[in-house]
């Protein structure tokens, strides 16, 4: 069951927190709303759930207009950051809650509950109370509780933020598996780009109540359309530049001091001022030789050894600092003070409008 959002407006106290937002989420899609706190992603999720009333616009589940439908009649499954388990009820009763609300009872219902809990690997804690569970277990119960009612859509509000790093990866997998098996349309809210990239079919990067860019994880990462997206999804070096020469093959030649660099050109019209975007892991370091004029000339000012890679900070001739992550053998081979040259594949560097 797909979700269609048309020209949605939401306001709090006279201020539009979401303005004229339209979005289509195909059936069975794992859709992530990504953005920093305050960008409106949670508001959008809660509007889809029905806890927040739309001021204008419509929300459709498939072809049904649910805009005015109260949340308890939308048949949604929801998972919360703080788990929101009922503390006075056992694990089994928590999971059974939605089934009971749908008039189910008895052994048939308990069978579903048991099955769902076993599915998330918690068949053995059915009679415990939430307080006796670990954080990861609690979130699994919450997941089972949301899934057992076979909802039309699954809504998740930062479900992994309260967990530690290791658990986060485990639960991530559980969520992905369950979602794929049930083939349920899912809206997942997070501020964590790694979560977004690893789990989603599609990502909507949100900024100030608008979807800034929509696409597959790869599209979002590789071809950010705005500096905001580039910055938020993955790390990026941003340098204000003026394009020296716009080539017919879609590349731009940019002069940085004496050195030149080629990058994909997304500027349109006559505009020449833009921002050069380069991800630290895409830059390659070489010792500087006088002949080499293609690349960024710099001097190593900081070096952090991180095991699998080394993170360098280079000072460009105009004292701009950029980050470079070096992988491969001998990745920590450049001493502080060394003059280096950083090169980049033209397909991976990009000039966007500022």
């Amino acid at each position, binding site marked *: 069951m797909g979700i269609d959002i048309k020209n949605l407006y939401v306001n709090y106290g006279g201020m539009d927190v979401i303005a004229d937002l339209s979005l289509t989420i195909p059936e069975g899609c794992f859709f992530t709303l990504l953005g920093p706190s305050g960008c409106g992603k949670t508001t959008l999720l809660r509007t889809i*759930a029905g*806890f927040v*009333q739309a001021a204008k616009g419509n929300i459709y589940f498939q072809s049904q207009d649910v805009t*005015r439908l*109260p*949340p*308890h*009649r*939308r*048949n*949604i*499954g*929801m998972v*919360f*950051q*703080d788990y*929101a*388990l*009922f*503390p*006075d*009820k056992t694990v089994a009763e928590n999971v059974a*809650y*939605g089934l009971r*609300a*749908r008039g189910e009872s008895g052994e048939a219902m308990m069978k579903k509950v048991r099955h769902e809990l076993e599915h998330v690997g918690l068949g053995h804690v059915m009679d415990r109370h939430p307080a006796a569970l670990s954080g990861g277990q609690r979130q699994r119960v*919450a997941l089972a*509780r*949301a899934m057992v*009612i076979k909802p039309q859509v699954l*809504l998740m509000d930062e479900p992994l933020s309260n967990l530690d790093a290791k658990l986060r990866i485990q639960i991530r997998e559980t969520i992905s598996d369950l979602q794929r098996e049930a083939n349920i349309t899912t809206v997942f809210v997070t501020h964590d780009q790694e979560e977004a990239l690893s789990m989603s079919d599609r990502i909507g990067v949100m900024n100030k109540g608008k979807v800034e860019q929509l696409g597959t994880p790869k599209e979002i990462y590789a071809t950010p359309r705005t500096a905001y997206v580039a910055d938020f999804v993955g790390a990026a070096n941003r340098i204000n530049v003026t394009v020296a020469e716009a080539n017919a093959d879609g590349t731009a030649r940019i002069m940085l001091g004496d050195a030149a660099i080629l990058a994909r050109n997304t500027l349109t019209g006559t505009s020449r001022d833009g921002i050069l975007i380069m991800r630290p892991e895409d830059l390659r370091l070489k010792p500087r030789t006088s002949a080499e004029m293609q690349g960024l000339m710099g001097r190593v000012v900081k070096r952090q050894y991180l095991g699998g890679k080394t993170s360098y900070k280079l000072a460009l001739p105009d004292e701009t600092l950029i980050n470079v992550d070096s992988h491969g053998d001998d990745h920590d081979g450049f001493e502080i003070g060394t003059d280096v040259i950083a090169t980049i594949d033209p397909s991976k560097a990009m000039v966007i409008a500022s």
Partner: protein
Amino acid sequence: MIRASDLRAPWLWLSLAALVALLVFIVYPVANILTASVSGDQNGWSRLLADPRGLTAILNALILASVVTCTCVLIGVPLAYVTARYRFFGKSIIALLPLITLVIPEVISAQTWLMALGNNGLITRFLRDIGIQLPTFYGWFGLVTVMTFVYYTYVYIGTVAAISGFDSTLEEAAQSLGTSPARSRMKVMLPVILPSILASALLVFTMVVGNFAISMILANRLPLLSVVTYQAAVSEGGAAPVMQSTFATVSVVMVMLILFLNRWIVSRGRFEIAQGRGARPVPITGWRGAVIGLAASFIVIVSLVPLAVIAVGAFTVSRGPVMQWGNWTLANMERVFINAPQPLVNSLIYAGAATLIGICFSALVSYLIIKKRNAVTPWLDYISSIPLALSGTVLGIGLVVSFNSGWLPLTGTATIMVLALLVRRLPFGMRSAQATLHNIPNSIEEASISLGSPPLRTFFKVVLPMMGPAIASAAILTWTTSVSELSASILVYSGGRETLTIQVFRLIGSNLMAYASAYGLVLIAVIIIPIIVATKVFKIDVFASK
């Protein structure tokens, strides 16, 4: 701003219904008091200004409240400090303190103190024999003494809570920076716990201003606001309530000012103490330990004397007003349970109904206030806290004046009795329900709704069970304070509707101490048994919400 979607949900309608109830039973009576003071042939205020007795009564009330507040702080704060910071012999009985204030009816406290310090009291006679003449107990001396020993526990409870919440590492930090222990305590701890002390001191102040039972017995020749208010109320009745309304208005204004002062102090005193480690009590032995232990035990034992006196009195043979100490009987108790059980039955029914309705109302209205805000809910919040500013006498007057006749005649019904208890104790339930609701995350409710449970069902199935323990403790507090309520119910009761406290008050008025003790003992049992059951059987922390 009300949206169409708000009209469909039940909350707005429930809020409006609650608002109507609060307007009728709280605002309307208070408004009647205020308007009645300026109505009638002669304006109550000009009569007040012309009557030196009335003005003296107000002045005396202020003086008495100030003095008692000071004495309560002088006893309560040191006692709290030593119990929070030291371990010594006899400390465990100090844990009984909060119970004592709750269970001993003030009438009985006053009467017992008379037996010790009256003209013919045990202590008075002893001191007279060795040549010391105490001042008469009827008046300042008696009022200050009895009220101090009845009310200091409020300062004690408030201060103990503040000291145990105080992060002792702050004190250690001050010491590490080179100040002496005593100085660091003064410099660091005092400013932090001061707001709590002041808040509890102001509570004592308002309670002294509104005190009825002790004042009635001991302020014979001293005009006091609460007594002249009561006398005006009973003499004017409900038909032309001019003077009682004037006095009541004075009392309301006085208490309101104090409450605002309190709120201001509390808001200024909001020091963020990052969940500190309270200091562990250290044992104190030797002569200092003995002195502290003895002093603390003395205070507590003195507070317990009235309890002992009525326990003995309840089983002592009497003939008319004369107690035959040393001769024991069950006749007094037989009277309470068999010959004249009506007051007991009444107390159980009225307090039970007031508790049940009060708790349900508090739970629902607090839920609206905290979780379902709309244009109406802030008003529910304000209005439901008005009874805090009303002494029992004032509330009683308001109810009598408003429901004596007219569109809703309640005089002489059981309803007005329940109403008096209900309104008077409503803030207890509200405060405790709101505190719990603040701690229930919204997501719990939304989880339930998202699972297909409609909002009302969610409230009953999820929110209410989570409020359970807090509701239970609020119910017990409401129950105990409703059972012991006197000052409002004595103004609204009618024949056959007397409660245990009214009966005790009446019997003491008729000098029948044995019967009064028997009813008093049963009253204490009715108060204390639910507390014991709750704390021992259900493990409810009754005093958590105080």
